[in-house]
């Protein structure tokens, strides 16, 4: 019984660490949805591109890891801006579902582009950090870094949105898309900045994921769905709700995976999601 409890505690703590990472993953998507009202179904694929960028610069071009990561974030941020300019802008006035679908085309394209450039073999940075052992519990060190960085990313985004002029403009646009142009805010510019910001958050997620997981072209499909579900569960566009939802999901996955197989953890989390949608379709913290 004693041992059982300590492993359960380990699962719970690991769940919290995973929650931080999931929170960061969903943050950029939530930001983009809240401001532009578009779901980027290819968001996870942009993270995948970021992971490949870090891999290519660090392993193939022998850049220092931190420089490669900074460049990776910049690349995905640029990709986000391009994505808005060339894919989303032409369909801004189309039906919402078309906006969702058009990003699906980008999903296929990015997956294929990564396959063309890097092949389908699994790649990794070759950086292996030792686990952190506390008593009888062990935690993956990259996961602790990811947790800390995720919290830092969330805090930085919050500061940006509340303390700067462009942040205020972004929040204003997200509250009323119709009226802000009349107040002298250029929504086109705000949208591009938001997309780049969302992209840079995807880039940051990529830097943290690449420390823990192997990279392959279909990796986006493995964590993409969960990212969307977290955003919806928290109330699409509601960043605080997204944070709460990320930690709830992470507990389901971690503790569910502790009692059963890891897939069952996901199954429980997804079924929970569907049930909550019927109970509160606007998300756990969303307003009516």
């Amino acid at each position, binding site marked *: 019984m004693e041992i059982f409890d300590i492993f359960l505690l380990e699962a719970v703590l690991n769940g919290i660490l995973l929650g931080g990472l999931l929170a960061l993953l969903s943050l950029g998507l939530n930001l983009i949805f809240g401001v532009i009202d578009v779901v980027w*179904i290819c968001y996870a694929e942009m993270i995948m591109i970021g992971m490949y960028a870090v891999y290519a610069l660090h392993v193939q071009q022998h850049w220092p890891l931190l420089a490669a990561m900074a460049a990776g974030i910049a690349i995905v941020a640029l990709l986000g801006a391009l994505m808005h300019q060339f894919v989303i802008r032409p369909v801004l006035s189309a039906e919402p579902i078309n906006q969702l679908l058009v990003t699906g*085309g980008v999903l*296929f*394209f990015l997956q294929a582009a990564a396959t*063309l450039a890097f092949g389908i073999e699994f790649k990794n940075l070759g950086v292996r950090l030792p686990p952190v052992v506390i008593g009888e519990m062990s935690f993956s060190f990259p996961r602790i870094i990811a947790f800390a960085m995720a919290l830092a990313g969330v805090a930085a985004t919050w500061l940006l949105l509340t303390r700067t002029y462009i942040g205020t403009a972004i929040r204003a646009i997200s509250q009323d898309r119709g009226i802000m142009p009349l107040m002298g805010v250029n929504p086109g510019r705000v949208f591009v900045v938001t997309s780049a910001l969302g992209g840079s958050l995807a880039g940051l997620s990529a830097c943290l994921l690449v420390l823990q997981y192997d990279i392959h072209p279909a990796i986006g*499909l493995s964590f993409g769905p969960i990212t969307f579900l977290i955003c919806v569960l928290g109330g699409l566009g509601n960043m605080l709700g997204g944070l709460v939802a990320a930690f709830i999901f992470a507990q389901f996955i971690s503790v569910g995976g502790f009692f059963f197989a890891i897939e069952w953890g996901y199954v429980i989390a*997804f079924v929970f999601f569907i049930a909550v949608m019927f109970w509160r379709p606007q998300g756990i913290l969303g307003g009516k």
Partner: protein
Amino acid sequence: MKYFLLALLALLAGTPFYGLGNYPLHLVIMCLLWGYVYTSWSIMGRLGLVSFGHGAFLGIGAYSVVMLWNHFGVSPWIGAIAGVVVSVIVAVIIGLPCFRFKIVGHYFALVTLALSEVTRLIIVALRDQTGGSLGATPNTALAQGNAWSLGALQFSEKIVWFYAILAVWLAGLWVWAKVDRGMTRLALEAISQEEEAAASIGINVTRSKLFVTLISAVMTSIGGVLYAQYQLYINPETVSGISISLQMVFGVIAGGMYVMLGPTVGAVFTLLLAEGLRLALGDSFKQFPALDLAIYGLMLVLFIIHMPKGILGTAAQIWQRRAAAKAPARG
């Protein structure tokens, strides 16, 4: 136009006798099979119910027959019925609350996405029974030089499959046309424009939506059964989960959601794009493993921006405009 389509159908029905060889015949069968599955999806998709969860029904159909056959020796005919029943139950469990609580648009898409992922994960998690990610193969019933086993729904000759799947595809188109002419379509079109207004003039929103959802789910799970029995190999990634669900959605969009043959054209287009590139590039195709997917993704983006009606939809539009331009001159 009608005679032209009939002639085309007659031409299609003769495919096995053109001496094309096994591989081209296989491609035609795959076009028809996926054409049927895409048509099934479009029955609800074109009425504003964009589901990202049809991988669930495909997976339920495929795994029901194979699991019942392999573990209990139940004939695939019964297994198919079981698959359909399970699909109906799942469609009601998900559909009813979605429609009652007005979960529409991208919320509906994402809830159904969760459904298809749940199906895939359950199949993987039950790996002791299903073989997990490695997939499963139905036990063969074709020992001792038997080419046919009607009871086990296994045929080694492609020609049998060709006609079976051709018939199912035609039946799918018939259902599509039936729904197209029914009152439910008009009701659902009204709903997809303005749900509150439609409800206020006496349309039962939940029932109309559930009706097309059930048709679509049943047809898709039959598609899963056919896929399993024809390919004799299934895998959780290829019959369920997010990637196959997205493939269905985008195949239909590429072909054209609002015309009867649009989904089939989408299936032909996606399958032949890869084949066409293989032919055009020859051996160098192998150096570009995902070139077809890259072109496909790029074309989807361009399609949705510039021709949201898809290939066949746009072609039909141009054709109608020409016909309209010619008509006054004749009259």
